[in-house]
Structures are given as structure tokens and as C-alpha cells.
């Protein structure tokens, strides 16, 4: 049984349908990436999964349907979402952002966890008392990942973590994501345009085009696909 099983997912905004019946799954401990160009429906997919927009079709998490649940309920079930544009809570300090990430937790280890994330991202530790909105884009992305991870999710959804970041910073972000998956066993579902980097950390991949999945396979298979290479890897 997969951690996340999605069948016939339809969704969109009002009368505008963006997704036309997606089928995909994410296994426990996997890193799965959904590649797609602008407008393919990547963000819509992620937002449907985290309950930010209405959708139809089956969404099974740990074998139970989570269709129609609100984001705060999904968060309690163990699904965390790093939104596009990082979703920094700009008027709170870095530390408050992290503390807020643990909002659904009731245990006493929250302070200790914050310390762990300061170790992983030392720059967050240095800026703990600073307003989060004053940090650079790369730092805010790290904060967004750490904030989502503070909930100790089983599944972490990431919406274009590379967006608006310098190449070196993007590499660093993906390296950290791979570490989180390896060290903490967190399952990752990443939607991305940056196919090269995303495939380098992924176990499996799907390719999304105008709201439908056109290719799927292991990261190596998808990376070797002629059409994918032309469209997303910039290789003729």
C-alpha cells in the first residue's frame, strides 16, 4: 500500500477545470517528483492534495480517503505543504515561524526540534530573532521547509522549491531535501520545473502536461525519455 494514492483527480478554480483525472501514488519513504511546465497544473495538484481548493476523485492517505478535508485537518493527519513562493509569515520572527510550524503538535519536544533545525540550517539560527520577511529568498525557502517539517509530517508536499532562487541556492535546497528524506524518513512529493535537479533526488517521476499525466517511471527512465529530455532538460 502506498502512503498516498490518487485516482482520477479532477480540480480547478470555479468553472475552470485544470486537472483532468490524474492517477499517481507516492510510496512510504519515497521521493516522487511531478515535472511540468508553467500552467501544466502542478500548483493546482498540490493545492488539491492539501485541501486548499475543491477537487473530485479519490485521494487516499494511508489507505483512508482524505478527500474534502480542510488543510488544518490534513496537517493533523501528517501532511505538510511548502507553498509556492514560500509562504513566509513575514511579520513573525524566524523562531516564531518555526514554533508555528509545530502548531498541531502537543508534545514537549518542540524547543528541541527548533534547535535541530537551527543545526541543519545554521543561518536560521543566526537570524532567529529577526523578522522572517527581512531574509533572502533562499533563507526563506529553508525556513519554509523547516517550518513544514516542524509538524513532523509523514508526507511533505513541496510546490516549486526552486522558484526564484539562484542556481547554487537551489542545489543547496535540494541537497537538504534529500538529507531530510534519508535521515528522517520523510516522504516527499515535489512538483518542479527544474527537471535536472528534481530528478537527481527523486526515486520516481511523473510528467504533467495540460492537466494530464503523460509519462511516468523511475527517475532514470523519465530522465532518459526523449520527449522529456527535449522539453525539460534542454537537450536536443
Amino acid at each position, binding site marked *: 500500500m502506498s502512503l498516498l494514492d490518487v485516482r482520477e483527480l479532477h480540480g480547478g478554480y470555479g468553472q475552470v477545470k485544470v486537472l483532468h483525472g490524474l492517477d499517481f501514488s507516492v510510496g512510504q519513504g519515497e521521493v516522487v517528483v511531478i515535472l511540468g511546465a508553467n500552467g501544466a497544473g502542478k500548483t493546482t495538484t498540490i493545492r488539491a492534495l*492539501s485541501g*486548499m481548493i475543491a477537487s473530485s476523485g479519490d485521494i487516499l492517505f494511508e489507505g483512508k480517503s482524505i478527500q474534502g478535508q*480542510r*488543510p*488544518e485537518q490534513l*496537517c*493533523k493527519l501528517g501532511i*505538510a*505543504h511548502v*507553498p509556492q513562493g514560500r*509562504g*513566509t*509569515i*513575514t*511579520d*513573525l520572527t524566524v523562531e*516564531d515561524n518555526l*514554533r*508555528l*510550524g509545530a*502548531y*498541531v503538535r502537543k508534545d514537549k519536544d518542540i524547543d528541541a526540534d527548533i534547535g535541530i533545525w537551527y543545526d541543519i540550517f545554521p543561518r536560521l539560527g543566526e537570524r532567529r530573532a529577526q523578522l522572517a*520577511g527581512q531574509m533572502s529568498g533562499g533563507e526563506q525557502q529553508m525556513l519554509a521547509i523547516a*517550518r*513544514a517539517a*516542524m*509538524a513532523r509530517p509523514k508526507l511533505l508536499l513541496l510546490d516549486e522549491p526552486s522558484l526564484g532562487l539562484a542556481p547554487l541556492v537551489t542545489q543547496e535546497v535540494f541537497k537538504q531535501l534529500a538529507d531530510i528524506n534519508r535521515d528522517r524518513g520523510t516522504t516527499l512529493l515535489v512538483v518542479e520545473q527544474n527537471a535536472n535537479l528534481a530528478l537527481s533526488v527523486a526515486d520516481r517521476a511523473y510528467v504533467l502536461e495540460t492537466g494530464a499525466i503523460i509519462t511516468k517511471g523511475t527517475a532514470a527512465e523519465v530522465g532518459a525519455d526523449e520527449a522529456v529530455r527535449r522539453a525539460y532538460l534542454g537537450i536536443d
Partner: protein
Amino acid sequence: MDELLQQLVNGFSNGAVYASLALSLVLVYRASGLLNFAQGEMAMVATYGAWELTERDIPVAVAIAIAMAGSFVFGALIERLLIRPVGDAETHALPLTIVTIGGFITLNAFAQWRWGTAVRSFPPLFGNGKITVAGAIITHQVIGTVASLLVVVGLLFLLFQKTKLGLAIRSVSSNVESSRLVGVPVGVVLMVSWGIAAAIGALAGGLVAGNQDLSPFMMQFILVSVFASATLGGFDSPLGAVVGGLLVGVFEVLIGRYVGIVGTDLALGATFVLILGVLVVRPQGLFGTAKVRRV
């Protein structure tokens, strides 16, 4: 010198009341992004509720406390039933403003209908005693008003900075979507914010009625000064509301008394000119945060 001191005391007393109601406005503004024109009338109706209790021989402190609790529920329900269904302030600022104006009209007319327009006396929460300091007379009510404000501010500070609920309230006022994504029940936070605002308003109403008299119009007389206080301090800053309230209170009294051509009738106008000057330099008020305009 005694005279000046006395004026300062009066100004502080008015200012503390402005500050309390400005705090209410600010809490609602931070939660829902709108100016609640009905805030003063909500406080006025709550004060009539407290007055009904005092007429039944319930001590005034208890009566005000009950009115505050009732207002908390009332405020939360208004958010849930009248405000939220209309839409968010980003896209529905005008209709939401009209809803609060509708609330203003309804509550004011209700109070006139239920309790009449005649002025009633309301027992002062802190009694009729007074002390004399350096020739200035300071009533216990004035001391109590300022002290109440300080207590409210202290409690709000603890709530915002030291509790999980406070963290959630601050988070929602900064970024609703991200708050939702980390599991904050945004709807509950909005209701609590409106509830706290209404409860503080009820306290302010009790203080105003005790200082002066109880009437359906008592809050309208000070509403503009309260708006001015919140603007001066910055609509998204609780600290700003307090500083703004005290500054406006003191400034109104001093300019009315000591600047001959202005006089009491135009003191508020002169205060506006001052605020306008501040806003031209700092459009977000003294303590407000400037909203970054995205390209």
C-alpha cells in the same frame, strides 16, 4: 502649573478610553483587515447590559465583567455570522464596511428603542473618591481608567507573546494561507480576535459611562477621536493604538485649552492636522508596518 497638570490628567483620562477602544479597532483590523464602524456601538449596548445588571443590585464590577463575557460571545458571533460570509477584505472592502455601518445603525437604533434617548447615570467602577496631587484633582475613576488600560495591555502582551493562541493570532494577521497550512484553525482565531476586541470595548464603555453618563450616543462623541488614535498609532499595531490614544487625548485637551484661535470646538480638527502631518511622513502611522506593494 497646577492648571497644566490638571489638563494633563484630564487628557490622560480621555486618552486611556480612546486607547482601549482603539485597541478594539486594531484587533479587528489585524484579524479581518477592516475598520469596524460598529465597534463603539457594540460597546455602548454592552454597557447598557451592564447597567441593567446594576439596576438589579449586582455590583458594578461584576456587571461589567459579565458584559465583557457576553460581548466576547457577541463579537465572535458577529464575525462568524455577519462578516465572514460576505468575503475577505481584500476583495470585499466596501460591502464589509457597509455591513459594519449597518451594524452601527442597527445597534444604535436598538439602544434608543430599548432604553430611550434620555441620559442615565452609571455607577463609576472605581467609586467617587479623589486625591489631590500638586494641586491637581485626580479622581479614583481616572486612576482606575488608566490602570485598567495598563492591565489590558499587559494581558494582551502576555497573550500575544507567550501563548500558542497569541502566536496563531499574530500569524493569521500576517499570512492567512500559511497559517492554514500549518494547521491553525483560522476561523476560530478570527472569532476569538473579534471576541477579545468586543470585550475590551465593553470595558471601555463601562469606563466612559462611569466617567460621564450612559446614553445611546456616548460612543459616537468619541468615535472620531478613537479612529484618529488608531490611525496615528497605526492600524495594525496594538502598541500604536495605546500610544496614539494617549497622545490624541492629551493633545486635544492641551490645544483646546491653550491655543486660543483653535479653542475646544476645533481641538479635534487641530489634532487631525497633526495626524495628517504624521501620516504624510509615515503613511502607516507611528507604529504600523508598511505594507510592501508587490509589482
